[in-house]
């Protein structure tokens, strides 16, 4: 009798031992793709499966109305002074590199830009915004000089274009020094021959 029970249990076990079926995505989603090969290199899959027609219950979103409003000063001049401007400072030159993380270059007073450091600025709006927050567009203070007051953060920022880590400056105040005489002719941090912006595509959400 015990033998029969044991046999029955083994049969039940064999029946239940099949792996539990995992959910599959509908056509066009990666979950419905075939099992991956053992080849560790990327094996591309049929692109036709990746662009499905919208399903019936799929949301097609309407255009988004922007809610964030920037200041719109008539002239491209930031306040001469903002926030806490006591203590030591760095000279900063606003530099724009398309699709590259960061605010620009900073250096100590009296040093040349060859010793400059590329920074991203993190700010608390209640303490001190970045200078260009006062302008209609972020690029409106390109190549402007500032005295920047604050400290370097103990953590870094990830720059996704160049796959490098950028220093973060926690701003608490600034003093505007007006336009610089010249552009800083240096590339921000990057790997070897891969110049910044070499891969000018990133991120999600095109619209």
């Amino acid at each position: 009798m015990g033998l029969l029970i044991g046999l029955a249990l083994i049969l039940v076990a064999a029946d239940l031992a099949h792996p539990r079926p995992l959910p599959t995505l509908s056509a066009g989603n990666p979950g419905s793709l075939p099992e991956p090969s053992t080849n560790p290199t990327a094996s591309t899959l049929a692109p036709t499966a990746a662009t499905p027609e919208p399903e019936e219950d799929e949301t097609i979103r309407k255009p988004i109305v922007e809610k964030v409003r920037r200041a719109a000063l008539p002239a491209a001049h930031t306040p001469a002074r903002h926030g806490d401007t006591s203590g030591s400072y760095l000279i900063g030159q606003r530099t724009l590199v398309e699709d590259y993380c960061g605010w620009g270059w900073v250096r100590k007073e009296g040093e040349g830009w060859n010793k400059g450091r590329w920074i991203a600025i993190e700010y608390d709006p209640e303490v001190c915004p970045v200078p260009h927050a006062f302008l209609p567009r972020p690029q409106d203070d390109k190549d402007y000089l500032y005295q920047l007051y604050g400290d370097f953060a103990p953590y870094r920022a990830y720059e996704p274009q160049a796959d490098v880590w950028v220093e973060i400056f926690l701003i608490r105040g600034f003093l505007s020094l007006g336009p610089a005489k010249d552009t800083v002719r240096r590339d921000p941090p990057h790997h070897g021959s891969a110049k910044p912006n070499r891969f000018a595509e990133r991120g999600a959400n095109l619209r």
Partner: protein
Amino acid sequence: MIRRLALALLIVLCPELSWAYDIVLISGGPALRSHERFKVNTHDRYWGNFVDSTLARVKELRKEFGPDDKITWLVFRPGYIRRGLEEKQDYLKILEERGHLHGLTPIYFDDKDQLFTLLQRNGSPEKPLIARLEYYGHSNKKCWMFDYSNRVDGGAIETQVVHVDDLENISGSSFTPDAKCVSYGCHSGEEFSQRWRMIVGRPMVGAVGKTDYSAGGLPKLSEGKGGSWAY
């Protein structure tokens, strides 16, 4: 004796009888519009891209799984707080309400260490193994960026990204042997997927090219770039 052996065999062969598996869906955070608004390649006009797409997926999963199957929704909290401050909205409340409609309560994480802890599983009822993991958020080929263009313009804070060099913190033993993983971020199929497979030991499907969340629902590969999905 035979009875005991059969019982032992049953337990070994059928762990499903003891506890269920878990499906983990991760939602990254949105960028701030004050950083992105004037860029040619602008991001996140809509704050809830990664929330809506995750919940659209839940809807799909519910059709295939039973109502009792466990889905864990991990949400990167700081991104929604900051975007909410910018637009004067309580996005955490809104996403919780949306999750509630799908029977889900978000579990928040604030940095990658918290995420690693949430992904540590031992197969117990409290920490069931992960049978499926999906990521919805910003990424490039080397990195999941929960925080992209939020605290700093055009970048992500070090502690709020999972770089391929961090993958050793995710153990393959937290997943079922046949677990499936998908990253719906951009470019993941170009390197991240392969590194995940090598280090975590489970296959991950990722996009070669960009993914586009702008139409709502599940993200699609961006048109015109010849993108595809890859392991």
